[in-house]
């Protein structure tokens, strides 16, 4: 207990600080931090040029393009449609609204492998939706478009769930004020509502993007996994692992991990921005 008192900023009468924080840190270090740092240590067995060569070979570069590109597009799609869904769920009443509201979280709860085989089944050329797209020249399953579909599915809840509470908390009086000042509905949405939504919307998109970049299960079934064409980075890591190329897998893993950390940092900055931007400079 005593050394822990050094970390405490404020004394407290409540017990259990040392015990709970100690256990939490110990457990989290053991399960997460130490194994993760192992990844970086393992990379250091590679020379710099080996590392650079591994992470910049054409197959790796193509996989980054697909992974980050499809994730970005998916985040954009979800940014738009997610906002519409959030708006409709908060502002309008229609039959089945509460069921729709509950189902938005499905991609959180559904195992990714299930999502993967199901999306493949629907969007393949003889699937429920794929059969209507095929005549239009749109092939989705087993193409990069399939990756986009899977990542859009995975990222769907994020924007809805970040924008929804902000919309709910918007003060109706503020909109009325804009109306009494002569603003049209569209002017009110653009000048009064949207500025309030932006931080949440961007945060939601960044979260969807971060989740999509690492996604594996739902993508590998629908992607077709053609090297240089429809192969995502997590799959490339997996392939290298299966070929016992631990060093190569690790190098790519480090790239992915650094990208994830940067995204987490960005999300935190966005959240900090949205909570503090109205307060004093």
């Amino acid at each position, binding site marked *: 207990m005593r050394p822990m008192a050094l*970390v405490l*900023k404020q004394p*407290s*009468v*409540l017990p*259990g*600080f040392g*015990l*709970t*924080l100690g*256990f939490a*840190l110990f*457990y*989290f270090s053991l*399960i*997460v931090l130490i*194994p*993760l740092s*192992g990844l970086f240590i393992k990379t250091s067995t590679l020379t710099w040029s080996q590392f650079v060569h591994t992470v910049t070979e054409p197959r790796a570069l193509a996989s980054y393009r697909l992974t980050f590109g499809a994730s970005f597009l998916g985040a954009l799609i979800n940014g738009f*449609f997610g906002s519409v*869904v959030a708006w*409709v769920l*908060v*502002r*309008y009443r229609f039959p089945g609204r*509460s069921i729709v509201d*509950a*189902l*938005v979280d*499905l991609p959180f*709860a559904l*195992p*990714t*492998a*299930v*999502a993967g*085989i*199901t999306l493949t*089944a629907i969007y393949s050329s003889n*699937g429920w*939706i794929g059969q209507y797209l095929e005549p239009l020249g749109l092939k989705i399953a087993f193409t990069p478009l399939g990756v986009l579909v899977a990542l859009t599915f995975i990222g769907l809840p994020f924007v809805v769930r970040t924008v929804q509470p902000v919309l*709910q908390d918007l003060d109706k009086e503020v909109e*009325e004020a804009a109306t009494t000042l002569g603003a049209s*509905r569209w002017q009110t949405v653009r000048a009064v509502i949207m500025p309030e939504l932006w931080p949440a919307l961007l945060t939601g998109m960044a979260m969807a993007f971060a989740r999509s970049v*690492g*996604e*594996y*299960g739902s993508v590998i079934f629908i992607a077709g996994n053609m090297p240089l064409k429809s192969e995502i980075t*997590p*799959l490339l*890591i*997996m392939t290298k692992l299966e070929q*016992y190329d*631990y060093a190569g*897998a*690790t190098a790519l*893993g480090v790239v992915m*991990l650094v990208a994830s*950390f940067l995204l*987490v940092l960005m999300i935190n900055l966005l959240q900090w921005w949205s909570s503090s931007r109205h307060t004093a400079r």
Partner: protein
Amino acid sequence: MSTEIATTVKNEEWKASLTGESTWVRWTLIALALGYLTLFLFVPLAAVFAEALKNGLESYFAPFQDPDTLVAIRLTFIAAALAVPLNLVFGVAAAWAIAKFEFIGKQLLITIIDIPLAVSPVISGLIYVLLFGAQGWVGPWLIEHDIKIIFALPGIVLATIFVTVPFIARELIPLMQSQGREEEEAAFTLGASGWQTFIHVTLPNIKWSLLYGIILCNARAMGEFGAVSVVSGHIRGLTNTLPLHVEILYNEYNAVGAFAVASLLTLLAIVTLIVKTVIERKSGPAQSAHDPAWSPQPGSPS
């Protein structure tokens, strides 16, 4: 009566023209939202069951008589039964320390707890292979002592724990932070022990969030695919969890079998969503009454 309805309709149109949208904008937006959700949510959900039942009930139940499936079910339950309680203890401990005390580095701790959510599941598996695999640091020592972690149950459990570490903690932390520490301090000054305070004061306040955290953690533990896939080795009837079994069946062109097993996991997801909805209704009447302005209720008569 009919004039009353007419007035009501007129009043609603009036309101919509002020701080709402015209009827056609409203329905366009609803159609857009539902169309999008249909394409990406409703159709996939229906497709799981449609594909599973394509050849009738008999072939639907066939994979569940396969001993390999039963082993996969058992393994999935074991992994969840170990991961969920451990993460529960972690989540409660972390939330208690973070919500009830002010200490240096607290914000950093809150941030890093989310790391497993940001890390690709493939990397979550990879780090354990690097540690415990045949060529890993501890690998040779493990082989010497004939302990198998990778391509065996312990690896699967570890990967599952890693992936689901944050779920209970991140349900509890914001809630307990917003509740403050006054009630606990009151109980403690009245002579309750720390444990009594937790059981009688804290727990009743957090039980619904705790329950949802457990349910969500369990669903993710049972459904984890990527991380487990890396460490499992895919040994049929031995180190296959349910999601991995779905993959194997699917790759063997046994689509009906794959979807039958998938439908089981989908039911788990649906149950999770139902529990979530029920808990939200129970714990947050304040939340559901939260959208006052947009429901057709009296505004603010004075």
